[in-house]
């Protein structure tokens, strides 16, 4: 198994997504919402004076002929949807440390992110990507157009997960910093002591339409460990002593189920699209089936 983020198989899958991108379109409100901005559409909105540097093709030559003054024709622009992708790049996403590379949570989430971003780029949406990690974040975009695929892949490949993050804090920062709301895809394992709710609420408060993709590895759902252990959190370095037997493992599974049900309930109440998948599921399946089933894509 190759340890390359975007190996030939992944790239081939991206190409396939591009083919279906004409049918798959991000944003449920596309075509129903008008932008207040002036754009390049055929519907007239207003005139303004020509200023140096304006596109000569947009000069209304009929007005110029009558008034001998150049006016630029302002047309009502169609909505150019903004698609924001937020990737949890804390150390806990770099898990499992050993085993199948494709099933590492960060790799899996990044491929999903790139797949969705590619569809958005092909569809003409404005794409921005933010990677959340300790210290500096990744900030890519906003960009529009198919041409940005390769730069996106290159930039994403350079980015590596690191350290411990406070997800709430990072999401709040993002909400405050981003001026243009739109679709917002959050890819995270949500394994954060301080939680995620305030951050998502902040995003919604700023008008983002949030889709939460909950990424988990199989051993987090059904751990196969036993004995007297000192568990070391790879993100925080904190330890926890446990004596694991069948009873304790059953207790963990119940606790895990309760946690994911809480997340699901929260998202349902707040109108957030929520999907939880383990990394043994092929990542393209999330795009082609799960998100379409939820109505995130259509």
């Amino acid at each position, binding site marked *: 198994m190759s340890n390359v983020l975007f190996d030939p198989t992944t790239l081939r899958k991206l190409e396939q997504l591009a083919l279906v991108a004409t049918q798959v379109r991000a944003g449920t409100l596309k075509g129903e919402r008008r932008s207040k901005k002036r754009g390049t559409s055929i519907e007239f909105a207003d005139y303004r004076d020509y200023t140096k540097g304006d596109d000569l093709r947009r000069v209304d030559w009929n007005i110029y002929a009558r008034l001998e003054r150049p006016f630029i024709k302002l047309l009502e622009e169609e909505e150019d949807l903004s698609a924001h992708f937020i990737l949890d790049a804390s150390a806990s996403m770099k898990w499992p440390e050993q085993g199948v590379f494709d099933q590492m949570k960060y790799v899996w989430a990044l491929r999903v992110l790139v797949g969705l971003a590619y569809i958005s780029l092909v569809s003409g949406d404005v794409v921005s990507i933010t990677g959340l990690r300790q210290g500096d974040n990744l900030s890519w975009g906003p960009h529009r157009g198919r041409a940005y695929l390769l730069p996106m892949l290159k930039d994403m490949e350079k980015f590596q997960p690191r350290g411990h993050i406070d997800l709430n804090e990072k999401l709040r920062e993002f909400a405050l910093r981003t001026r243009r709301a739109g679709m917002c895809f959050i890819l995270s394992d949500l394994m954060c002591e301080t939680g995620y709710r305030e951050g998502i609420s902040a995003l919604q408060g700023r008008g983002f339409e949030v889709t939460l993709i909950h990424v988990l590895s199989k051993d987090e759902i059904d751990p196969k460990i036993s004995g007297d252990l000192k568990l070391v959190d790879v993100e925080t370095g904190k330890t*926890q002593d446990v004596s694991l037997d069948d009873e*304790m493992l059953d207790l963990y599974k119940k606790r895990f189920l309760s946690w994911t049900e809480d997340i699901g309930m929260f998202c349902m109440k707040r109108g957030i699209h929520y999907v939880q998948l383990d990394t043994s599921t092929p990542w393209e399946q999330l795009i082609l089936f799960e998100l379409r089933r939820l109505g995130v894509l259509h």
Partner: protein
Amino acid sequence: MSFITPAALAMGLLSVPIILMYMLRLRRTEMNISSNFLWQQLVRDREANAPWQRLRFSWLLLLQLLILAALVLALARPFQEVKTISSGRIVLLLDASASMAATDVSPSRFEQSQQIAEALVDTLGDEDTMTVIRVADVPDVLISSSQDKSAIRNAIRGAEISDSTGDWFAALTLAAAGAKGVEQLNVVIVTDGGLPGNLPEIPGDIRVVLVGEESENLAITALATRAVGGGEPQLFAQITNYGTQDAETIFSLSLDGELFSAQRYAVPAGQHIDVLTEDLPDNFRELEATLSVPSGSNVPDYLDSDNTAYAVYSAGGAGRVLLMTPRNIFLSEIFSSLPGVQLTQGDPANGLPRGEFDLYVFDSWLPARLPDGDLFIINPPGSTELFTVTGTIENINRARVSFIKPDDPRTEFLDFKNVNIRSFQSVRGFEDWAETMIEAEAGPLLLAGEVNNRQVAILTFALQESDLPLQIAWPVLVSNLTRWYTPPRALDVGDSIAPGTALPIRPYAGDSVRVTLPNGERVTLEMGETAQVAFADTNRAGIYTVEIRDGDRTLATEAFAVNLFSPLESNITPRESVLIGTVAFSDAVREDIGQREWWRELAVLGLIILLVEWLLYHRAALRKPSAGVPAFIGSRLPRRRFLGWRRS
């Protein structure tokens, strides 16, 4: 209850570290996980950072303390004082003779005696020692003056029963040798009582433990094949009932492995019957006779080893025989009837005829010079270079038989008690080369010996001066002497030998002797300079085949039979006492104080608890034997330890 090594009880202090182990926090194995915030909510132990925890009840702790208790007690060697047969420095004589195979006690007398011996070992004190001697045809010291109970037990368990009679004289001598320099020697004899009556006294305290309860036993006590009178071979057998009930038995004969006959006989209690079978073919070599209990008989036969007997038949004769007799019809008749004999009769009046003979029979006549060859001289009329005739004794009372040499093939089965002799020649001067076979008060009646490479026998009376020719002893005597005269054989045995008897083999040629044992095993003996080898591995009853070999070539084949034929062994009647020296020893009572140790039971108990502890500890693993750890788990789990100081 006391302890031999009470200091070992101090090992009980080991329970303190065991308990402390349970109070100490575990040293856990570190393992990376993606996040432990879910686990934090599940932790049962709220005192995770404290080095000690409250001691909780644990089955494993309880079992481990029990294991320690059992092992510490075992090390302290607790014992109980019990009554025993003997203690101190003990020499144990374990009877392994053939009669000990009797099954009147379960499983057999020998195995019961082994159990008695082991029980004696169990009560040995800390300072006591034991020597174990197995008493068979050759006494065998199984272990000498040992305090190691385990080694003594192994020696006793490893002892095997023999097919032979026990050499008690040698065994007691061996036991007495251990008494030298010892203050008090205790000799314990475990036997069924079949000891000979002339045993010597030995020093020390003798205790006898008698085994055996029943006496019912039928035995073949004699078996021989002869061709008498030139006719068909005959079988002589004797069946003895040593029991207290009249018994019936089936007497089966097999010739060269083929069943020849099976006859049913009734043998009165304490009596014997003689069996004579006359119609045997003359072309067989090996004969096996077997006794078996007929179906429906309610009289048991507790000893098997004397129910089978073997015989080897050889049709060899004396060869060319010259008979010089003044018309003695008894002599001419008997020699002409012997198988393999070419008889030539001569008239003493005409002197010694020409020619060479294997055997010269001179009846009341002697030539001027004795010829080369074997001689049978009857009623010598005068002296020769071999003997001197000093006169004629005519007192019938002084001619009564007073001695017959026992255990000699030339006197085998001879009964001279009813033979009357009117007169005989008084012969002297034979002592250098001949032995007296039969003797009367006034002098020898039959002499036999070997001189100048020839065998010579002298019957000192004329047949017509006695009623010997009318007695059964006459053909038996001639038959015995003829077999003796037979040209030299490699084996010099009678009808059979007793188990354990060393047998000289004198091959007339060849460079080696190969003996095939009854079980098919072969033993090759290389010839030395003496042209004689001794074969002593005759412990098993059966037929032994002797091949005289020259390189890879077999020059001649002979055979001999080994049979028990021992009234001492076949008579399994329980004895009330055993006579050693002049003292009759009856069954010993347990009057000494011995020590019964309990450490083995405690050690076994500890082992069982250890097994339970192991099962308990691994019960989860036993339920899910295939539960594994995925390869991507951050670190490997520790291997479970057999006796781990872990909480359940």
